């Protein structure tokens, strides 16, 4: 492209510029990810996107090697040992294909009569329990207080006091 002397001078200019650029600019352009570099290697980027990548590549010649290698990638090269392949395949274990994510079964809405019946059943249960409890409590009380008191109590409850109706009886009889 140029004479040897010119080439040496151009190389020196480039080195001079690159040193100054690195010192002055720092890291102005963010590093592109692997997918962006791959797209660049395959010439799939727009001009603007390619410019950003090129600006970064100019400061990172080691990554430029990656792009060049990627553009000529070849799967037919050397093959790894069987042990290396086995180690790599073991990184992902077999998953049980019968396992399915747990899902709650969809329940149909209960009809209104079932809800009402359930509530009535609960109320009836409470009533029965209350009556049985009351009867048991009464039995226990009477058995503890003795038969005399029971008789007196029964008399008090069911027999009317003699004073209230005595006059009435006399009047009616007379």
């Amino acid at each position: 492209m140029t004479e040897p002397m010119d080439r040496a001078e151009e190389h020196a200019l480039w080195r001079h510029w690159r040193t100054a650029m690195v010192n002055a600019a720092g890291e102005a352009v963010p590093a592109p990810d692997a997918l962006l570099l791959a797209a660049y290697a395959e010439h799939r980027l727009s001009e603007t996107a390619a410019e950003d990548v090129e600006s970064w590549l100019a400061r990172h010649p080691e990554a430029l090697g990656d792009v060049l290698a990627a553009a000529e990638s070849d799967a037919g090269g050397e093959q790894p040992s069987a042990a290396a392949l086995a180690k790599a395949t073991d990184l992902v274990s077999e998953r049980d294909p019968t396992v399915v994510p747990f899902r709650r079964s969809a329940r149909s809405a209960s009809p209104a009569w079932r809800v009402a019946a359930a509530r009535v059943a609960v109320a009836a249960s409470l009533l029965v329990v209350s009556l049985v409890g009351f009867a048991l409590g009464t039995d226990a009380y009477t058995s503890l207080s003795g038969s005399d008191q029971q008789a007196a109590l029964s008399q008090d409850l069911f027999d009317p006091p003699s004073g209230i109706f005595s006059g009435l009886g006399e009047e009616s009889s007379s």
Partner: protein
Amino acid sequence: MIRGERVADKDLAALVAGNKTAWDGFVRRYAGLILSAVRTLVREGTEAEDILQEVFVRLCKDDFRLLKTYDPVRAGLSTWLTIVARSTARDVQRRHRPPQSALDDVPERLLAVSDVHVEPLRFPKDLLSPRQQLVLTMLYERDMDVAEIARTLDVDPQTVRSTHHKAMLKLRAYFAPGRQ
């Protein structure tokens, strides 16, 4: 890029879903490519196969996080894998690089902090366009010839020569004696 390579969406979906059969097929198909990609960066011996393992670990770890970033619409899988593999190789080498010299071996005067204030260099960052920078990097950093550069950039060789020529004119003008 491998000729005729096209990864079916369903294969990729099965792969990132953790399907063992898909993973085994993927490993067998691309292990050679990854090994070839890292071979030029590593020393002799088993180091290349260690890096091969590291690449596959990166691809599948965290529920295939890295592999899920791949988009077949944007680039071929082999191209993307080559870049991932070489980037991984450099990271591994950086991690394992021995320290250059022990701190105790460095003379104390070299560790002394100078109190001299240095003005930051004013430099026109956009003196050269990104394309011009890249062409010069390829020419002078990687010793590539014009035909190689043209092929890499998918342009005509004459365009490369022209880009180089214009870049040099700018640099000569900028670094001319008496200019700074």
